[in-house]
């Protein structure tokens, strides 16, 4: 079930109504059943995978917490990690490995072409973090299987995060929540903002991006640059829109999920960018990859190596394709270069310049992230630098087939997005209730009149 469908809102209303009517004792069961239904509507057979992962991690967690033997505890942790990573490997990376073997050793092994279970990278990472935290003694193992299963499958964040830690989410799921209008209105506001980003901006700008990136040979530098900036906006609106709807839906159920995006394109350094973009994943890699490798408390070369490895793994997490690995590598290398100290100025223009520079670097990396292949990405960069326009900028833009109305709607919507993000970035709050009410109405009717009604999947569902 997709967040941007009418079905989801019918589902959410029914669940909210039942949730607040039901005795607290049984609410976990309602949410668990709802979460399995939410996922099963897409492909019921993949529920087995979630159940398998849940059961293994539940048993390993209990085993780790009850055992005094260091060896056994370690063995159980490896069992948990191995089973999760095996699932991930088979469904996500097996064909990539076979292709690599075929290419390197000139073999012809058959690919399996398995369907990637939606959200597999998210829920396996979430459960792995649980096992590691129990092993490290940071949290106690959850004894109630139902609550643990709910932690793994809680529907607002099941398929694309935020990747929550058990220490944050489990206590909230157990806590008795009273109906509260503030939760409903705050949640609704987040849902509206998320929907606006997804259906008005991301799905509409996708028409331009897909046309250009899928037929990149037909376009010259200027249009490729516009499409790349378009993709930067699309992926931000798509993913942060998803996160907003997830956070908003959970808020209505009285659960506070962590922030996943904090106006990342206003970052003045790449390091700052990664504290604002996909925060839950960045923190996961920091805590479970970067720090175990030694983090920054090692010699310089090793520290840089740790940083690069973390970003390469992050790229590989996004997809079994060299383009994602290069994307991660670019971020890693630029972050290392950023550590070289240069004199910092405090002029506003200098800060704006830095924001633009970081945005340009991020856009450059997005080329690899979005391109259909490495050769496409290289071709795109080559054209950006060598041939700017074909028949004039306007004629080239027209040739993408994007109509005037689409362009006007996009300009309108991106302006609203910019204002909302700028207010957030400046930590300014609108206190006037009438203005807030007006804002909600503008968002609601923008979604209804200008939203792309064809329900499209979120980009991060494929990861």
């Amino acid at each position: 079930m997709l967040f941007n469908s009418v079905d989801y809102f019918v589902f959410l209303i029914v669940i909210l109504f039942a949730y607040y009517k039901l005795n607290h004792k049984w609410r976990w069961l309602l949410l668990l059943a709802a979460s399995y239904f939410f996922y099963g509507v897409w492909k019921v057979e993949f529920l087995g995978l979630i159940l398998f992962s849940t059961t293994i991690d539940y048993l390993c967690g209990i085993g780790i917490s009850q055992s005094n033997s260091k060896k056994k505890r370690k063995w159980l942790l490896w069992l948990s990690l191995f089973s999760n990573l095996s699932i991930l490997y088979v469904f996500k990376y097996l064909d990539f490995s076979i292709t690599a073997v075929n290419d390197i050793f000139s073999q012809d092994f058959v690919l399996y072409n398995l369907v990637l279970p939606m959200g597999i990278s998210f829920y396996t990472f979430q459960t792995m973090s649980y096992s590691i935290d129990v092993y490290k003694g940071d949290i106690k193992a959850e004894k109630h299987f139902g609550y643990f299963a709910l932690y793994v499958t809680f529907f607002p964040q099941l398929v694309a995060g935020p990747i929550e830690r058990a220490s944050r989410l489990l206590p909230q799921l157990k806590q008795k929540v009273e109906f509260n209008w503030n939760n409903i209105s705050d949640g609704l506001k987040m849902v509206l903002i998320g929907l606006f980003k997804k259906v008005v901006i991301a799905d509409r700008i996708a028409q331009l991006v897909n046309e250009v990136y899928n037929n990149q040979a037909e376009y010259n530098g200027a249009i490729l640059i516009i499409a790349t900036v378009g993709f930067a906006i699309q992926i931000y609106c798509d993913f942060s829109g998803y996160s907003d709807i997830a956070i908003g839906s959970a808020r209505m159920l009285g659960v506070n999920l962590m922030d996943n995006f904090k106006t990342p394109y206003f970052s003045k350094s790449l390091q700052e960018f990664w504290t604002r973009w996909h925060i839950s994943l960045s923190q996961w890699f920091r805590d479970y990859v970067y720090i175990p490798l030694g983090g920054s408390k090692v010699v310089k070369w090793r520290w840089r190596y740790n940083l690069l490895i973390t970003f390469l793994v992050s790229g590989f997490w996004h997809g079994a394709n060299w383009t994602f690995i290069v994307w991660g590598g670019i971020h890693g290398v630029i972050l290392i270069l950023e550590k070289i100290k240069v004199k910092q100025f405090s002029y506003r223009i200098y800060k704006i310049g830095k924001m633009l520079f970081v945005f340009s670097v991020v856009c450059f990396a997005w080329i690899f992230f979005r391109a259909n292949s490495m050769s496409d990405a290289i071709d795109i960069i080559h054209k950006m630098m060598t041939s700017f326009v074909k028949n004039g900028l306007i004629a080239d833009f027209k040739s993408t087939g994007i109509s005037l109305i689409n362009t006007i709607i996009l300009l309108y919507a991106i302006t609203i997005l910019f204002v909302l993000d700028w207010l957030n970035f400046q930590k300014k709050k609108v206190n006037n209730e009438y203005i807030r009410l007006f804002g909600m109405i503008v968002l609601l009717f923008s979604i209804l009149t200008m939203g792309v009604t064809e329900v499209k999947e979120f980009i991060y569902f494929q990861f």
Partner: protein
Amino acid sequence: MKRSRKIILLLALVLVINQFLSYWYESVMRESSFAKVDETYEELDEGEHFDIFIMGNSHTFALLDNLSNSMFKFGTTGETIDQTYYKFLDVIENKKLKVDTLIIPLDINYLVELKMDNSRYPFFWNKYLSFSDYLSESNEKWNFVKNSILGYVVPYVNGSNDMFDYYFSSGKGNQLRSEGNVIADSLVDFEIPKGELDEKYLYFYPYIEKINEQCAKEGIHLIMISFPVTKYFYSQTAKKMDPELYFATIKNNLETKGLEFNHINLSQEYGSEKFRDPHHLGDNEIRFEFTELVKQKMSEQKSKKINE
């Protein structure tokens, strides 16, 4: 502001704006070419006679009144063949019109697989469809029901394109949607694929048979016209099909069942300079010329039939 007052104010505002937008949208759509034809159709007398009756999508707007002294144009923007079929049933069963010749388009995307989910103008189409019949044929039943309800509650959903067309496009008085981008033929690097035909392009083929059978039953002469489109439109639409094979397959299927295939293919008759958007001919002058051409082709087809 008290919470209860805030909720009441919000709901009241949403309801009022929704009512206003619904009313505005529907009144604009009624004024637009889209529904004008529908009103004109409603005014027809039961059992009225027409030499030529034109149905189908906006490509049929290329035909002007010089085609016949007794003709009716019942085509609408974005109409798909399944909708045409149900409208046609209304023509012969409810209005009981007497028609000599029925013209429908046979474009390269007219039979292509689409979701029958009633998402386009449900508030408009519902009156021509037997809801249960259409629902039983639908390949998207749940979405069909959902969109039908939405069509009544918020008819203007994603209506920005229609509004824009109406207020800002040159199509306001010409039964055409907005002016799009006409890419010069010289800039389109496209060759028509040979010997390829994806089955999805024939998804709605059964409706051609249904219309054909109804015509045979009523003694109506059915003509299918492939209307002019630009090379750019072809390149965007027909990447995985060979139009010649497409037409030949339809012809073969119909003739196997003993049904007629009267086809006039004018899809590549004009260069891009004659178009106002990639698949609609330009001003009245060219459309007048096109109509004369169709008249001539129809007359040639008729004499050929007589000679046979």
